[in-house]
């Protein structure tokens, strides 16, 4: 049984990265300038679906500011490949080029690029580029996509991008005989990451070395390097990709292959000029990979005691033109099972392509959807059975196992921490005051909602074993990758992964690494990360990491890890990231992975370094601390070996990814006439294993929860009947402001991970994953006091949809 933690003594007061960010000395890509840089702009399609008849640059070319232009045909001549598309999960190839060739497939799709001398002239000249379009009917919904009257990719024959199944036991039979069955149609509209910093790229082609120096807003410099190399057909070593500070990503700056860095590379090489591009917010909305847009028809069956017997679900996802990453609906399929024992499962998923911008990972990347679908269903079941929603969870959550969260324990904590009984009383008082008559009436009803979740399912959580019936279906479990076939970029078969370290690097001054070129070292993949830790003669430690912070505090937390392992004061440790040369390999920061994989690699490398220091000091005082008496020891030891510094590397692969689990509670009031909800209390009780930095962890949870609140109540990318995106500003796409966000209380249990070397579990997305259902369950609880049976299951639950539910429409 774990304990509520005490503040770690080693946590610093503020973060290492704070001073420069607070002083306005952050180095975001748009802040960077090269002498003589030129400015790139993109001509974008105003149509969702149209043939391109011709592009005319002549008017733009007549300006002295015009330098050069590119079209899709130019890219083909350059030998540029189609936009990169991961083949995991298996899906149809969506062949399109970074600049549209032949036809455009979404409003905002890049059609041409121009390069100009002056930033102020860019939009003037963009307006002068004339493109002749022949509009064709657009596929604007899953229904239209299914109908297949218009094809997004003609060569497909239909509009189905991918499909999948998860099946064991016999859900059909179980549902037929179950005493309690509920069915619901749920969904989350198309939403997006919306980091406050727009995408940006700055490229300088260094002619003598034939190297592209690329600064870009990416969550992984190595990922961008790989994409550029692959799409431009050049070796990776030709690209030096860098990012320093980045203003949020939330998935949109992840693996999606955007055209701009590639186009900037071509322009820079052709003209010899540095090339700068920064998206406007409108372009962000048009082009950045969006998320969610997933709908679920779910049937949940329970026995007389409320134990789940079966889940049957049909998931449909609108993936737009299909992006680089398309695993989101697969992740939804797994997280749909929650953290529960489910003996019979039948889930079918289909992803449809439409004339919208590509879908990509958005904080949670499929897990918020899955968790929402099951947690909403659990709530509907609890109401049907007259059971307290927390009790229904208790009866179904997997039992505590070593290294795993005590799910029931977290729920019991919540009851105390949130003052559950008092909240029930409060709710009852508010609802009894509610009447619709009289001038002094109260228009407010109250609701309480809970949601339990984590990112389980992804990575083959072996505790699913408990839920199986005696018969496995022939396809096996969907997270058994060997049965999937097809390219597998993300995961090795979970059966053969274990904690895996690279070979130690050779001693010597300059860094070199024993890479993953088949010499038996671990391969870098989703469950691993690279780190190198060095110690110089002055006792300064440098941590090189493949992780890439953009708000997560990694510059501080990884320094903390090295500082602890090496017993070196925190201010002697610096962290280097975001440089594909200084950090030769890496996977990056997304998917709640950095503390677990990146952090473990740092710990592993630090331990190896410590061992090597002990080794070369041959029994002498080897404490790597830099107290005055320690310094000469390190310096002497290194000098004796003829070393300027000591270094150790790690490619650390965890046995399996670990994520936090938690219970969220949301209390809200609903103005019944206006359909406006106001969250008055929000409590999180969670277990993310060892907490490296409490403020950082809680900050991630706060931000994640508010992202879910926005998703549940405010955010939607809206389209018209012709597939035009209507929400292209922060006025129309409503992310939460300070007035839309509640105070959030967070409490922790600590069950250290047995897979991560630092005992941590991923928590970056947890707030968002679990939050949607907490808010929607509270809202629906409130609605049940207005008109029994009134429900809103399609998200965002905006006031008009709430009023429609009350009216029974």
């Amino acid at each position: 049984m774990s304990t509520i933690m005490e503040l770690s003594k080693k946590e610093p007061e503020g973060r290492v990265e704070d001073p420069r960010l607070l002083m306005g000395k952050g180095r975001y890509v748009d802040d960077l300038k090269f002498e003589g840089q030129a400015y790139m702009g993109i001509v974008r399609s105003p149509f969702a679906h149209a043939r391109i008849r011709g592009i005319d640059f002549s008017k733009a070319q007549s300006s002295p500011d015009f330098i050069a232009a590119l079209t899709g045909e130019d890219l083909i001549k350059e030998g540029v490949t189609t936009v990169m598309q991961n083949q995991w999960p298996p899906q149809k190839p969506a062949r399109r080029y970074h600049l549209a060739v032949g036809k455009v497939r979404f409003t905002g799709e890049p059609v041409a690029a121009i390069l100009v001398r002056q930033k102020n002239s860019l939009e003037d000249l963009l307006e002068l580029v004339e493109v002749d379009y022949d509009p064709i009917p657009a596929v604007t919904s899953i229904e239209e996509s299914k109908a297949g009257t218009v094809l997004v990719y003609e060569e497909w024959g239909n509009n189905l991008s991918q499909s999948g199944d998860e099946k064991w036991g016999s859900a059909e039979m179980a549902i037929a005989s179950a005493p309690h069955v509920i069915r619901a149609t749920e969904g989350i509209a198309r939403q997006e990451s919306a980091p406050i910093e727009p995408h940006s790229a700055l490229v300088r082609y260094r002619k003598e070395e034939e190297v592209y120096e690329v600064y870009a807003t990416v969550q992984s410099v190595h990922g961008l390097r790989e994409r550029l190399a692959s799409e431009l057909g050049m070796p990776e070593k030709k690209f030096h990709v860098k990012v320093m500070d980045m203003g949020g990503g939330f998935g949109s700056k992840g693996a999606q292959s955007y055209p701009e860095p590639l186009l900037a590379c071509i322009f820079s090489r052709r003209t010899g000029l540095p090339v700068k591009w920064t998206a406007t917010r409108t372009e962000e909305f048009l082009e950045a990979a969006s998320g969610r847009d997933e709908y679920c028809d779910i049937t949940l069956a329970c026995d007389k005691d409320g134990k789940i017997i079966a889940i049957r679900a049909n998931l449909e996802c609108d993936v737009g033109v299909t992006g680089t990453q398309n695993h989101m609906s697969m992740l939804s399929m797994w997280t749909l099972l929650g953290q529960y024992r489910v003996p019979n499962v039948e889930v079918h998923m289909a992803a449809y392509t439409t004339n919208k911008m590509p879908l990509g990972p958005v904080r949670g990347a499929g897990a918020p959807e899955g968790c929402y679908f099951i947690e909403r269903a659990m709530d509907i079941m609890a109401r049907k059975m007259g059971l307290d929603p927390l009790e229904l969870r208790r009866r179904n959550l997997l039992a505590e196992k070593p290294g795993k969260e005590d799910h029931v324990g977290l729920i019991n904590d919540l009851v105390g921490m949130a003052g559950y009984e008092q909240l029930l009383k409060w709710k009852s008082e508010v609802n009894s005051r509610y009447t619709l008559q009289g001038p002094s009436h109260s228009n407010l009803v109250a609701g309480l909602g809970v949601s339990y979740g984590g990112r389980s399912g992804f990575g083959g959580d072996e505790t699913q074993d408990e839920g199986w019936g005696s018969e496995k279906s022939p396809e096996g479990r969907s997270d058994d990758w060997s049965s999937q076939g097809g390219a597998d970029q993300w995961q090795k078969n979970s059966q053969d992964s274990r904690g895996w370290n690279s070979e130690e690097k050779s001693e010597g001054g300059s860094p070199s690494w024993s890479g993953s070129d088949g010499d038996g070292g671990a391969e870098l993949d989703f469950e691993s990360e690279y780190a190198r830790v060095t110690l110089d003669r002055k006792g300064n430690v440098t941590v090189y990491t493949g992780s890439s912070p953009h708000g997560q505090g990694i510059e501080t937390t990884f320094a903390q890890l090295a500082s602890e392992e090496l017993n070196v004061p925190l201010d002697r440790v610096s962290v280097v990231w975001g440089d594909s040369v200084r950090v030769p390999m890496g996977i990056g920061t997304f998917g709640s992975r950095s503390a677990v994989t990146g952090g473990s690699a740092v710990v592993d490398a630090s331990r190896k370094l410590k061992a090597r220091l002990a080794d070369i000091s041959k029994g002498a005082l080897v404490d790597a601390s830099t107290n005055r008496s320690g310094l000469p020891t390190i310096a002497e030891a290194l000098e004796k070996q003829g070393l300027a510094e000591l270094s150790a590397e790690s490619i650390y692969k965890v046995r399996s990814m670990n994520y936090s689990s938690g219970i969220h509670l949301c209390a809200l009031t609903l103005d019944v006439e206006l359909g406006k909800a106001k969250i008055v209390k929000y409590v999180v009780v969670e277990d993310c294993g060892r907490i490296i930095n409490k403020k950082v962890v809680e900050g991630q949870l706060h931000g994640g929860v508010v992202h879910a609140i926005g998703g549940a109540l405010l955010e939607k990318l809206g389209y018209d009947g012709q597939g035009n995106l209507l929400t292209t500003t922060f006025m129309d796409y409503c992310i939460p402001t300070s007035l839309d966000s509640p105070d959030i209380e967070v409490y922790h249990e600590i069950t250290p991970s047995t897979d991560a070397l630092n005992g941590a579990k991923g928590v970056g997305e947890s707030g968002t994953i679990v939050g949607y259902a907490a808010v929607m369950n509270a809202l629906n609880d409130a609605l049940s006091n207005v008109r029994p049976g009134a429900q809103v299951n399609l998200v965002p639950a905006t006031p008009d949809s709430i009023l429609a539910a009350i009216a029974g429409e």
Partner: protein
Amino acid sequence: MIPKKFDYYSPGSLKEAIRLLRQNEEAKVLAGGQSLLPLMKLRLAAPTALVDISKLADLSYIRDEGNYLAIGALAAHDAVEHDVTIKDRFTLINDAVARIGDQQVRNLGTIGGSVCHADPAADLPVALLVADARFVIEGEGGKRIVTARDFFVDLFTTAVGHDEILTELQVPYLAERSGSAYFKHSLREADFAIANVGTIITMEGDGKRCREARIGFGSAGPTPVRAASAEQYLRERPLDEGTIAEAAERAIEGASPPSDVHGSREYRLKMIKVLTQRSLRLALSRVGLAGGGVER
């Protein structure tokens, strides 16, 4: 993000400003810029010249003129929000201006700029129409005064001619036993209204019957609208839940709100009714408080 090119003028006097407008057919007045600049940045507006009047300090004031309050067109929203007289005696204007944008927008945006922009979903036009404000417009020929009903002509169009400038708003003081309120319903606080309603109630001496009710709403047509039928209905009637509800039903006559990504027509009509009721109730509760209500 970068506007199209334009010439910029910063005249030293109103007269000079008017002359510059006359000389440039496509020139626009720049006051706080909080409505105009975003449009220019999106290139939805592209005037070839801007006449910046924001430095004309003598157009920024709030003055008691005996039987009306005079507000200079360049008074910033923030100044209006903090003005005690307005809060006391024209609470609905205080309610309205407090809902405009956010603090930064209220710091620079001006009353005149906002009403001349004449967005149908804006807050001030509704409040001023309900308050029967008068608009002082100056041109080369001199001053003229236009009523609120005549001022708002169409979507983003007012009675101010191309070479004229709005210089002052005159808001007649409310009679005794008056109360007022303005409500806005929007997704988030700072968003443009899905529905917005302002009301002024003046009660008879017996305190029971309504001598006069003024009800107006926006976001339901090209200009803000006075709900004449509802106003007529409430005259000499007691104000109770029944009459308030009936007034709300009648208020939507003449309302033609759009259906768009923020809400359907039916939903908006429903909201006008709800806000009318709430506004009437709050205005009523403010009657008898100093000057017409400060309590919220």
